[in-house]
């Protein structure tokens, strides 16, 4: 057989002294790395993606997954990935596909931002003993409030009609991941957790499966260019509708769910033939302008009796002007998905070279909407590489109303960011539709883990607020005075609207 010149990335090893020949590794590996050789387990290491499923399920700790040490001659200019991709392309003539967000090295602004804390002159608050408010409302806020004075009772009554808002117990939601790109069980984990924690999950563009109906009060339904699974029942099922224009991992290109991930059940919800590639066209062919976007926003509002509409875009060079257009088109929520945003499948060249990071985009959009006096017209959701509650706090200080997390949520289900989601072989049962693999992901069990994560982040956010001496997330929102930049140039600081440390 022709041996690929693209070097294997990992080396799966079994200590034969420890191995008890239980074959559990063979069963657990979705990539067929292991097979039974009659008296011992045989290893085909080039198939290993380091998802660590076998490692966790080996009862005798006989398995070790190592980084393959054989490598191309080190070269500071021609990196390992450059050479390996050329080998892959030489063998296939194809565009290298990638899963998950960009792992490229480069400056990560979140890591160059530091939050303030109280000392001496203003007291900090102990969140364990004092109330701390994380409640968040997403949607339009009125530009003024009018009250009527009731002479009889002497009380004031609000007369302004409040626009519809989504109520969250914490400023965290789950990013859109469709049935098809992830398994139904993975969606159930998100839905259960959203309900449990009082937050929201998003269907992505793949329809709403029957089994998710009990959770619809915590679900945003998505409409994208393929219009998969969209009908009036679907639009009205959730608490809001999201129009997906773009995704941070693949700005400007459409969706492409490989045929391997389209079995009968997924084909049925998407209304496409089994085993075809589910193509979401690059543009929505009915949206070529802000006016067209407005038309779709209001079509959805008409069809849902004026539920909030969110518009999701990838953050690109001109993001501030685009976001302003989206708000003026009538969106209630602007969802910004940054350069590091995750994906189930994206061409590597797009993922790693197009778009801008969420930190810059968020600051630019928040600034622009404030300058134009329309910041209250829509909420901003920041997504695309939120790795921790610290990132979330910094994003909120930069101007986000809430953050959306995808990769972090999947990691609670076993994901190790191996990045091979597009193959449909996920050994953890997350990004696969193979029934023997998806059955592993028990929604009840994993919803507990994901709820734990959300609870932990909520506590962390409260700790940060306490240290900042404020008792509501509202007081941190857009408060860039509480941020300082370290190791950043003057221009970046100017864009972010934060002072350097020491000032």
């Amino acid at each position, binding site marked *: 057989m022709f041996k690929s010149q693209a070097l294997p990335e990992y080396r799966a090893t079994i200590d034969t002294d420890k191995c008890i020949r239980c074959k559990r590794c063979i069963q657990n590996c979705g990539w067929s790395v292991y097979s039974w050789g009659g008296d011992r387990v045989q290893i085909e290491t080039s198939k290993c993606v380091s998802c660590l499923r076998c490692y966790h399920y080996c009862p005798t700790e006989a398995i070790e997954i190592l980084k393959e040490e054989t490598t191309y001659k080190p070269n500071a200019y021609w990196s390992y990935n450059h050479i390996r991709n050329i080998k*892959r*392309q030489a*063998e*296939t*003539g*194809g*565009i*290298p*596909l990638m899963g998950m967000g960009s792992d490229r090295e480069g400056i990560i602004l979140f890591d160059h931002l530091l939050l303030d804390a109280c000392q001496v002159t203003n007291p900090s608050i102990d969140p364990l003993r004092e109330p701390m408010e994380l409640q968040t409302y997403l949607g339009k806020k009125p530009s003024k409030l009018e009250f009527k004075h009731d002479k009889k009772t002497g009380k004031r009554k609000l007369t302004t009609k409040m626009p519809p808002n989504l109520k969250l117990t914490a400023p965290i939601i789950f990013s859109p991941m469709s049935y098809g790109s992830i398994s139904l069980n993975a969606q159930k984990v998100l839905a259960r957790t959203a309900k449990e924690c009082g937050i929201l999950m998003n269907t992505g563009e793949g329809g709403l499966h029957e089994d998710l109906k009990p959770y619809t009060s915590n679900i945003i339904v998505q*409409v994208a*260019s*393929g*219009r998969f699974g*969209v*009908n*009036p*029942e679907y*639009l009205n099922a959730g608490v809001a509708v999201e129009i997906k224009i773009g995704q941070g991992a693949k700005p400007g290109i459409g969706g*492409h769910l*490989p*045929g391997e991930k389209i079995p009968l059940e997924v*084909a*049925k919800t*998407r*209304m*496409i*033939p089994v*085993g*075809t*590639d589910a*193509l979401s*066209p690059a543009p929505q*062919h*009915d949206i070529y302008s802000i006016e067209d976007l407005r*038309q*779709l926003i*209001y*079509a959805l509002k*008409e*069809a*849902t*009796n004026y539920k909030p509409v969110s518009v999701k875009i990838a953050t690109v060079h001109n993001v501030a002007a685009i976001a302003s257009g989206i708000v003026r088109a009538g969106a209630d929520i602007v969802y910004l998905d940054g350069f590091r945003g995750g994906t189930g499948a994206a*061409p590597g060249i797009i993922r790693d070279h197009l778009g801008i990071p969420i930190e810059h985009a968020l600051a630019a959009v928040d600034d622009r909407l404030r300058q134009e006096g329309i910041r209250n017209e829509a909420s901003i959701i920041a997504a695309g590489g939120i790795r921790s509650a610290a990132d979330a706090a910094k994003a909120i200080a930069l101007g986000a109303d809430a953050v959306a997390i995808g990769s972090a949520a999947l990691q609670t289900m076993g994901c190790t960011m191996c990045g091979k989601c*597009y*193959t449909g072989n996920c050994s953890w049962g997350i990004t696969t539709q193979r029934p023997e693999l998806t059955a592993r992901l028990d929604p009840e069990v994993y919803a507990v883990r994901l709820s734990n994560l959300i609870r932990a982040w909520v506590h962390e956010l409260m700790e940060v607020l306490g240290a900042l001496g404020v008792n509501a997330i509202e007081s941190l929102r857009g408060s860039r005075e509480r941020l300082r930049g370290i190791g950043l140039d003057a221009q970046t600081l100017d864009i972010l609207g934060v002072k350097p440390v020491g000032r």
Partner: protein
Amino acid sequence: MFEIDAKGKHFRDLNAEVREAVDKGEKEISLKNVNGQYYIATGLCGKLDITVEGVPGNDLSAFMDGPTVTIKSNAQDNIANTMNAGKIIIHGNAGDVLGYGMRGGKLHIRGDVGYRVGIHMKGAKRQSSTIIAGGTAGDFFGEYMAGGVLILLGLDSEENAPIVGDYLGTGMHGGAIYIRGPVEQKYCGAEVGVMETNEEDAKILKKLLKEYCEDLDLDLDMVMSRPFKKLIPVSSRPYGNLYSY
């Protein structure tokens, strides 16, 4: 027949009035003096008959699930956007981007249609979409088509005169397009195979066109008198080899 006068009304008020009538149980609604109002019959469900007098605006019957809408004049863009079930009959011409992502139901147009008609139409065994246009069509007819049936008749054109634009069926991966006129492969997407129709096709066409002719008062024999070309995807995975895994 419940009548609503649309004269001078904003789409929001007009459509709220229509929804109110539907909620009250009206099954036959007639809209008079319609003049460009958007979103008529958008999101409406169930068995209803809606007649539109005047020219309705964009996004007519978006996400519609069941009603029959009859338009006695021309209509504009984005009709039957992601429509799920029901029927739309248009006696005049219609604009661009008709039946985008349409999942089911029928769109019968007597006259010409614009660009990007039938993009990403869908269909499965239980539920399938059909668009029939009596005149000519612009570019990108049936782009990304995933299912359903798209028929173009060229009723007012000379025999052998071109009736459809460029990039026909680009990215098509399901469904079928029938063209009652010449089709040159060079104007089709690379994913499209151009075939002669067989008996099975004739049966499908006859069934769909019989209803179309009844709706628009046309003679079925006249419509069937010219040969059709059939366009189907040559691969269910047109971009399967594009990527390296």
